Structure formats: structure tokens, C-alpha cells
């Protein structure tokens, strides 16, 4: 299959990548850019482990074709913190025991960031709804809700 060129900005850095038409944004990030922080849990948009922020909106990267993200701006978990610091969300997740196996964590963090970027004062239901597409099998979700609420308070 012939490859096409995609120009994409990830965490503030611009990339030009050759991909197949069928390559997903998830595979572009993980396989081409070696940004493996975004996880593949189901590859069919049901688990949320691959959540990234594309042009300000939380999306399942496995359901976005790389070619459809051409000229797009993507934020992944690797870009959450600064050079030498962690994002408050990451710190609060750690403090509240909201990270166990960690596999759902990048997706949870990006969904949480997308939420508080657009709604700086989410209530419990807002948080639950925004994160309802992120599955977790270890943690039970309560600590994640607390972590997001703590982040907002600070």
C-alpha cells in the first residue's frame, strides 16, 4: 500500500510522517513517533486507553485515521508535564492512590485534562460522564474522581 505524508503537531513539536491510509492516529503515535505513553487496549474505541486530545477534544486515537489528523494538534500524556515537573493531575493521581497498574492512566489523564480545560469547575457527575469511556479494571474509579476534584481545587 502506498504511503502518504501527514503533518502533525504533537505536544508542541511538528512532525512529518509517512503513513498508510489505514494507519490510525494511535499507531502513528506509538509506532512512528515512538510515543508509547498512549496505550492500545482494544483498538476499537471501547476502552479509552488510547485517549488523546486532538484539536482540543478528547478522542480515541484508535478511531482516528492518521490522515484525518493531518495538520492537527495532538496532546498526549508525554506532553502533560513540563520539562522538570509533573502536571497537577499527575501529582494528584499519584497522591490519591489513583494509579495501580497504570495502563488506563494515560487515557484517564487526557480525558481529565480535556474536561478541566473546558469546564474548570466540574461536579462529580461531570467527572464521571467525561471519564465514562475510560475503563479501569484495577482501581474502582473512586480515587480518580477524588484526584480530579483535588486538582480543580488547587
Amino acid at each position, binding site marked *: 500500500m502506498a504511503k502518504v505524508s501527514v503533518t502533525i503537531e504533537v505536544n508542541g513539536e511538528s512532525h512529518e510522517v509517512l503513513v498508510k491510509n489505514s494507519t490510525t492516529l494511535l499507531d502513528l503515535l506509538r509506532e512512528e513517533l515512538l510515543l*508509547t505513553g498512549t496505550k492500545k487496549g482494544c483498538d476499537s474505541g471501547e476502552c479509552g486507553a488510547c485517549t488523546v486530545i486532538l484539536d482540543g477534544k478528547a478522542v480515541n486515537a484508535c478511531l482516528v485515521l492518521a490522515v484525518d489528523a493531518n495538520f492537527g494538534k495532538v496532546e498526549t500524556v508525554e506532553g502533560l508535564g513540563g520539562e522538570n515537573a509533573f502536571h497537577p493531575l499527575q501529582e494528584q493521581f499519584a497522591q490519591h492512590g489513583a494509579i495501580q497498574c497504570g495502563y488506563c492512566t494515560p487515557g484517564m489523564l487526557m480525558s481529565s485534562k480535556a474536561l478541566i480545560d473546558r469546564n474548570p469547575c466540574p461536579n462529580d457527575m461531570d467527572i464521571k460522564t467525561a471519564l465514562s469511556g475510560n475503563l479501569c*479494571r484495577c482501581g474502582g474509579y473512586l*480515587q480518580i474522581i477524588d484526584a480530579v476534584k483535588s486538582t480543580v481545587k488547587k
Partner: protein
Amino acid sequence: MELGYGVIGKKVPRLDALSKGSGNVKYVSDLYLPGLLTGKILRSPLPHAKILNINISKALRIPGVKAVITAADTPQRKFCLNPAWANNMLLQNEKVRYVGDQVAAVAAIDEDTGNEALSLIEVDYEPLSGVFDPEEAMLPDAPKIHAEESNIALHGTRTFGDVDKAFEEAAYVCEGTFYSPPLAHCCMEPRGCVAYYDLSGKLTVWSTTQTPHPLREELSEVLDIPQSKISVFQAPVGGAFGARMGMDPIDGVAAVLSVKTHRPVKLVNTREEEFLSSRIRYPMKIWIRTGADKNGRLIAQEIKVITDNGAYNHEGQYVMGNAGSKLAQLYAVPNIRYEGFLVYTNNVYGGAFRGYGNPQITYAIEIQLDKIAEALKIDPAEIRLFNANKANSVTASGCKIGSCGLGDCIETVVEESGWKDKKVKERKSGSKRRGIGIACMIHGGSGVKFFFGTDCNSSSAIAKINTDGSVDILTGSAELGQGSNTTLAMIAAEELGVSLEAINIINGDTDTTPPCGGAWGSRQTFMAGNAVKYAAAEAKDQILKVVSDLLEAPVEDLLIEKGKVFVKGSPSRFVTVAEASADSWRNRGTPIVGKGVNVDPWSVQPDMKTGYGNVSSAYAFAAQAAEVEVDTETGCVEVIDFWCAHDVGKAINPLGAEAQIKGGVISMGLGYALMEALVLKNGAVQNTNFADYKIPTMLDAFDVKTYLIEPIDKYGPFGAKGVGEPAMIPSAAAIANAIHDAVGVWINDLPITPEKVFAALREKNI
């Protein structure tokens, strides 16, 4: 005398939390090595068939395909976690026995090429009749799944006391049949590994295993490669819950592909394969009969359980045995009979899954107990308190209960939940009814002794104190996300008298760490914890000897606190741990290295004939209460509140213990109770994705109040016992009992779906 602890008992965030939160931690599927190939497995579409011929020639011709293998490319050795029951193979050579069975495999330059190659492998099958119901499979004329054997893989009976006499004397006898369906682990990370067989003949495997040392042994056996030529690294794991116990065919197949290509091969399940062809929770049909005296004392209990083993042996014998053993352990019942049939079928086969048979049996025991309580007009919490095991007692099957906080657990949830009030009032609003239910559990808190075909449940560790005072702890244990490494670091820091920050845990690397059985049976806090404690203690002794010399004071007068060693009462004259280590190494030529070996101290291999014996050194107990709201118009059940009191001996890291409990209840217990079941049709799993196999989402989350009960176990490290599995063992029963309290219906078959509740309500004309 309760000592003030410097490190343990405090809520400590996981040591690896921030690195996981940064996205920098590399799980198996994140690993890239030069020359990496993608492995794919060809799986049988048929539940039962002879393999007549496999033609791989077309697949081999595709550019980018580097190897295509069948059974002939492997040593064709049968394997199983217990080699005595081995009847599975990495790739089948004569028959496939379930939909999803491994037939062939390819290594290709990428996933697309690999999938194309799979589609071009031609397999000639001769379909055979399949059997999918274990009761049908038990019949003499059922299709035989393994050559010349009955489909009954195991039939055993255990009896303690005089069961028939006790039932005759019982004032009230209750019986019922319960069913627990096949379930998928649904770890967020699919199973997988990277295997690399290099040109020197060394095999390195990065695996999602929860048992790195046993995996190395299994790989050596099935591949015919010496253990010294195999290194297993347990990569950070995205959830396990038993899914990754023992070798998965993926590990062995990836290794063979690498042997063929001399290139690293990454083989990771798709999510569909996770549902279709991966080990499940053993489905069980449980008939149970219980006899009580007029006061509600349980005097006899018997069960007959039929377990669907699936196509191959893995852990069914142990799981079924563990389930039955709970009859004699959960309450002080003197007369027990347990008969178990483990039956092959052409369904996907089972494996370890959080609770290991215990959730299935606890569901039956705990609902039955509520039925008895109702019939005898005794409060369900009271009847449990009345029958609860006590500390320092021996059960009918010989289990020695040391520390036991069950009574405290029950009283705590009764108090905190407002039980007495809620039981008395009928609470309804429109079509909705509220109810409250309770369930208890017992589980091994230290692992058990009937594993891996050996007597041994053991763990070992090494503690090295570096010349800067930092400490390396080498442990063969596995960190799955349950927080084991953090707990072990806290134990080491406490024992040594140094800060938590000084501790570096190196685990799951078979090259450098001494063996440990691995993460199962909620054993690592107890078994690996004590091994680490002993290793740290030995290193501490060495430090004290050096300082004794430097300070010219007897060893028994010395104390270590916050990394400083001094004579008790004279803290201003000290030698730091760093200085002592440096002195020992540089001036005396002796590095500070301590070794700890923890052999399960108090348990025995149960008698092979009678089953009598103490199988675990420590037992964990819990009581959970659920409050539900049932909509009588739809049958929908909502859990609105939950209380958990868990006897953990001593909580090394309360934050970790609470996280396990909350996660166990919501992310697994709730799903087990109300949502989850694999649906199989002629052996093929129909619901192979998260839309059709539903697990709890954040919208299902409810408040879980946790209470850690600490009776301090005699043998556990600083008194600690395990909590990983107990977290979800009684949850489904608590919910079921709450539903009955709300609307008066019992649902014996899991999951409790709205359809079942609705039908039951209609039958009762509610």
C-alpha cells in the same frame, strides 16, 4: 505492646505512580528492539477437530514473512502449571479442542503482513463432535476430548465428621443450586511478550507474567533449553488478576518464532483474542445443602460441584479444591462433605482468576446462609457472628486459624452501615425498593501449599546496603500494579531503620533476583514481605557488627533510626548506615549483603487421601455490606452504598490496601454480581469486545467505605496478611442478599441481570 513504626502503617503513594502517570513506563507492547518482528497465532475456528494437514507454503511466499511454524517446529512437549497434568501444547499437533486453540504461528515485519500470512495458511480439519456442557461431557457416550480418557479430569470427595448423622439431627435443612458463569479477566493490557533468542543461544523473554521464576522453569521444560540460558524479565504489567499465572502459550510460541528467526518477536493478543481464546474463570454449577440447629448454628454442609475444565488442564484441580475447602473454613462447621467433578469440554479452558474458586463457592454459601437466617427468623449479621471462626482455632478440615478478625469485621459493617435501622424499615419510593445485605469471606492470606506440584510455598530476597546508605532489595516477586513493590520497600525500610526513599526494589528479573513463587494467592505481602524482612534483618546484623566495633559497644545496645546507628540513649554519637557500609566494604573487604528465605512456616501439604491439613499459614477474613435500590418495573439494580471491613493482620500501606478493596469491589465485584458473563455458542465465545461483555465503568462507581481490621498476625511481616483477592470475594453475595432484602427474590445464577430480577418479580406477582 504496639511499637511506633517509622514507615509502615502510613498511607504511602505508590513508588512507581508518577513514572506510570508520565507515560514513560514501558509495558511489553511498548518495547522496541532492533529487528523486532510481530508474531501472530493462527487459531482454530472449530471446537473439536482432527488436524489432517497444514499447508504453510503460500504464507511463506509473502514478502516480509520471516517464519511460519507449526507443532513440528517445537519440541512438542505437553505442558501445564503442574507438569503431572500436562496435556496442552504450544501448537497442537493432532487435534484442536476449542475455538481459539493454537494451530500455527507467523513472525512478520508488521501486523498487517502477519495477518495476511495467517489468512494464507491452509489447515485441513476433520470436524469431530463437540461437547459443551460438562454434565453432558460426563456421560459415557460423550465425545472424548483427550485420547482414551474419560472427560472427567478429576473426581474427588472429601468428608470431615459425620455428615449424614448431622443432617438427620438438624432442625432446619436448606438446599439450592447455584451457577457461576465463565468470565474474562479484562486486564486493560492484553497478554503478550517479547522473546529474543540470540545467536549465542540465549533466550530473553519480557513477559506480562505474574510468576517470572516459574515461567522460566516452564519455558525451559517446554522448549528444552537449560534454565541458565533463559532470562525472564517481568515487564510492568497492566493488571493480572490471575490471567498471567504460569506460562501462556504466547510466551512459548514467541520464543519458538525467535528461535527460528534469531530476531526478537513481539506477540501480543488483540482484545478479541483476550475474550475468545484466553483462560477464564472456571464456570461452576454448585449444589449445596446446609443443616442448622434451632439456634442457627451450622452443623452440616455439603456440596457437589461440577466445574467446566474446558479443553485443557491448567489450574482446575487446584481451583476446585480451593472452592471446596472453603466449606470447612468460612464458618465453624463440624461436618462437611464435598464432592467435585472437573470435566473437560470443548470450551475455552480456565485459569487462575482473583479468588480462585472462592467467589463461586462464597456466593453459594452466603446466599444459602441468608435463606437459613430468614427461615429461622435470625438476623443475617447475627447468624454470621454466631457461626464465625475464632482466632487460634482449628477447623474440621485441619486448618489452623491464627489471627482472626471476622467478628470485628461483621460488627464493624453492622455498626457503620446503619444495618439495624435499615433492616427494620421497609424502604420504598414509587417503584423502587431499597435493601441491605451482608456477606463474609475467608481466604488464604499467605498463599497455599498445594501449588506447582510441590510442597513449597516460598520466597527469597537479598538486601544489599550500598556505600552511600541506599539499599537494593532483590526479590523474585512480581509487581502487577497491586502495589507489592511499595509494600516490600516499606517493610525493608522499617526493618532496617532507614527512610523509604533509600530503598530500591529490583524485582521480577530471573537473572538477578532469587526465586519466589510469584504473585498469586494474595501471598506476596506475607511471603515476599517476610523474605525481604529476613534479608534486611541479616544486613542490619552485619551493619551492627561493624558499628559495634567502631563505637566499641555491644551489638545488643545498638539501635538504627533514620539511617543512624547509635547506642540506645546516646543518639548524638552515631555512625550512619552509609558510613558503616563503606567501612565494611573498603576497610574490611566485606560488602553488606543479607539473604532471606521464607518457607511457609505453618502450613502442610494436605493429606492426599483425606484432605486434612493446614493449607495456609495465615487466613484473611472480611465482611462486606451492600445497599441496593431495585426498580421493580425494570428489574434494574443499582448499588448505592457499600461497606467493607477487612482483616489484613496489619496494614503495611493503608492507601494500598484501601485501593485494592475499592478496586476489587467496584471494578470486579460489581461486574461479577450484575454484568459479566462470556456467552458461548458451540464453544465459540460470542461477546468478544467491551461493548458486549460489560465491565463496570465510572458511571457505575458508588461510595465504598473501607475499614482495615488489624488483629496482628503472629507469622506475617509486622503482622500483615494478604488482601488482593479478598477484596472482591464476598461482594456479589452481599449484593444478592441486599436484593433479596429489597424485593424478596433470590437469584442463584450469576450475573444478576435485570431480566432475571424482572422475571423473578413477576413470578412473585410483585
